[in-house]
């Protein structure tokens, strides 16, 4: 019986195999070009798991004959490593795009192909595409994937214990900080300046949008109508400087992982956050946490958030599998991808117009601010970081110094402005 069974099975398997091989042989001609392996270059080594177990399998359900390989470098090494590989001709087919000039530079050097004709690009607004388009907006060279939003994450248990409510204005914010400080059990703000970018990104850019009114200020800066020495920017630096007395012991040599640990261990009450921290906190914190938007200066002011276009994906112009790469990009533009990405990596918010349900409540809160506040991107990213000295580097430097107390807010503003004025025409007057 058993034998018979297995014989039948074997025969059927044999038939199946024969048919399969005939079909395969027939398809081989047609498919010779499309049964390919695509390699993705990325700096998101933290997300390798999600790509390998969720995103790529979901893609393969629809496109089984395109194999996709996810290859990531550490974020700080990505640009250098990618450039080296592009120069050597060994880079992958799909290239994860940094926003603005780093990718624009790749496009101008002919390393990235235009994606104007890729199906799905129409799912994105001009703002979403702006980070990966030429200055005239005519050519887009990467398919936008996600943005990150800044705000503040707070430890709900500490807030409950000290009977605090999430602040809406800067004055309330300081009242909350003072209360936590007087209580003395917890560090009011978890932030360090050793890595410098924390002060600039989680600090200056996070709260700054409320001072320079988001896109209005950002565009005025690019057009040369506003200067860093103007009141909004100096005020943002002043507010940032005031945080120093609320930060942990030795914050000057506190690095980003220290900051994260300080918060997830329940030793700090408020964490100036990027939304990408949410999934990490979800895993590590064993207390309830929630988020509030950057406080506005006066009650009733319009609120702004830094909703920064952060990540996109483009095609290596020298790829041998351009058609397959386009297929993948179209899929990245689909609502299906947006849904997976938003929920597997809460904190990275899809940029496509498709409505996506974010299930993580804190991440949902971050993305909810898009409805109540005006979105803007970091002001140093578009055009302004093209010269020497590099504005983004300068902002890291002066923001950290302002918090360290080694530079006054006015001096920081002046240094950023002087640097910009030394090469950027609209600011030279």
């Amino acid at each position: 019986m058993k034998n018979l069974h297995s014989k039948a099975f074997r025969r059927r398997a044999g038939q199946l195999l024969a048919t399969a091989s005939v079909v395969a042989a027939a398809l081989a001609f047609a498919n010779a070009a499309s049964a390919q392996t695509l390699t993705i270059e990325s700096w998101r080594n933290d997300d390798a798991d999600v790509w390998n177990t969720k995103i790529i399998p979901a893609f393969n359900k629809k496109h089984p004959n395109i194999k996709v390989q996810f290859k990531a470098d550490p974020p700080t090494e990505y640009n250098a490593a990618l450039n080296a590989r592009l120069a050597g001709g060994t880079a992958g087919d799909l290239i994860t795009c940094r926003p603005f000039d780093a990718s624009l530079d790749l496009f101008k050097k002919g390393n990235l192909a235009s994606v104007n004709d890729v199906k799905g690009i129409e799912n994105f607004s001009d703002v979403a595409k702006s980070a990966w388009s030429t200055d005239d907006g005519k050519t887009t060279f990467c398919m936008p994937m996600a943005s990150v939003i800044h705000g503040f994450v707070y430890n709900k248990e500490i807030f409950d214990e000290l009977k605090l409510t999430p602040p809406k204005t800067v004055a309330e914010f300081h009242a909350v900080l003072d209360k936590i400080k007087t209580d003395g059990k917890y560090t009011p703000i978890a932030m360090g300046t050793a890595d410098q970018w924390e002060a600039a990104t989680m600090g200056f850019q996070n709260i700054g949008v409320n001072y320079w009114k988001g896109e209005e200020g950002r565009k005025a800066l690019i057009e040369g109508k506003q200067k860093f020495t103007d009141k909004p920017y100096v005020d943002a630096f002043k507010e940032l400087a005031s945080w120093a007395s609320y930060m942990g012991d030795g914050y000057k040599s506190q690095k980003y992982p220290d900051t994260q640990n300080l918060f997830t261990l329940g030793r700090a009450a408020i964490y100036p956050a990027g939304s990408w921290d949410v999934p990490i906190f979800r895993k590590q914190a064993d207390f309830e946490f929630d988020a509030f938007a950057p406080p506005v200066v006066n009650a009733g002011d319009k609120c702004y958030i830094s909703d920064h276009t952060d990540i996109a994906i483009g095609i290596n112009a020298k790829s041998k599998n351009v058609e397959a790469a386009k297929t993948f990009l179209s899929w990245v533009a689909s609502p299906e991808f947006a849904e997976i990405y938003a929920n597997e990596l809460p904190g990275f918010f899809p940029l496509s117009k498709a409505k996506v349900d974010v299930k993580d409540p804190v991440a949902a809160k971050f993305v909810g601010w898009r409805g109540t506040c005006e979105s803007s991107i970091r002001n140093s990213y578009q055009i302004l970081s093209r010269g020497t000295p590099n504005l983004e580097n300068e902002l890291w430097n002066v923001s950290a110094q302002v918090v360290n107390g080694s530079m006054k807010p006015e001096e920081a503003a002046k240094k950023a402005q002087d640097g910009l004025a030394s090469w950027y025409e609209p600011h030279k007057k």
Partner: protein
Amino acid sequence: MTDLTASHVQSTDVVPARSRFPIHIVVFLAPALAIYTLFSIYPLVDTIRLSLYTGDETGARSFVGLQNFSTLLTDPNWSGQFWNAFTNNLIFFAIHMVVQNGIGLGLAMLLSLPRLTGGSVYRTLIFLPTMLSVVIIGFIWQLMLNPLWGIAPSLLKAVGLGSLFGPWLGQESTALLTVSLISVWQFVGIPMMLIYAALLNIPDDLLDAATVDGAGPFSVFWFVRLPLILPTLGVVSILTFVANFNAFDLIYAIKGALAGPNFSTDILGTFFYRTFFGFQLQVGSPTMGAAVATAMLVIILIGVLIYLFGVQRRLQRHTF
């Protein structure tokens, strides 16, 4: 007589063969020369060539002569960073010369004490960090000096000196010194071993003779041992110089390529990295980077030449 002529005839037979091109020398030299040329000389020459070019945004390169160097030295945006990195590098080197080589010498003296027990254990332990990866060293020291959960603040507090602790790696005034000392800690084993080997080479009768002549331990060290190990100290110095002006990894591991706070830990290596590879939004410039690399080469070359002609020629080597 017959013998003589015979040998004479023989040698005339052989001479033409010998005067032919000595192919075996070429064969023996070839592997080393080929590898050295391919991986060392060619990249070096090509770097210098690249430093004379500039690239536009499409990646096309054009010859500009020495313009990159004039930018590097005269444009305040570049020269400020360059000289800052150079000064920091000098301080970095000075700390290594004084502390690393000083302690190395001291340790070598202690190790060469005749009645020392467990000498090889100390030797191994002190040399061990040299073999560890810089990333590990950087990580361990950052952890130890961490103001939040480091062992350094708690140790100081335990002995009542808690107020002495500061976030040393994060302060502009102390960061470079701290990073230098971490590097010293890692590499102190190398001068120690070299000097130790030199000390062992000094014959005992010289030391005995000095002692018999009435020299105390200090005089023996100052007038007998030190002069005899001077050539080794010279080699140690030049090794330190070259290694320090090529240093990059430890600073990159601890402070990142922006070498904060306020570029206080920026040395030529990190400055080169930022220029060549770019950083965050700063797009890297291979040609400008090559100019920085060439400037580093020149600096190291000048240092080595000063040593060769100013120091090494005056050193007397003693053979026993």
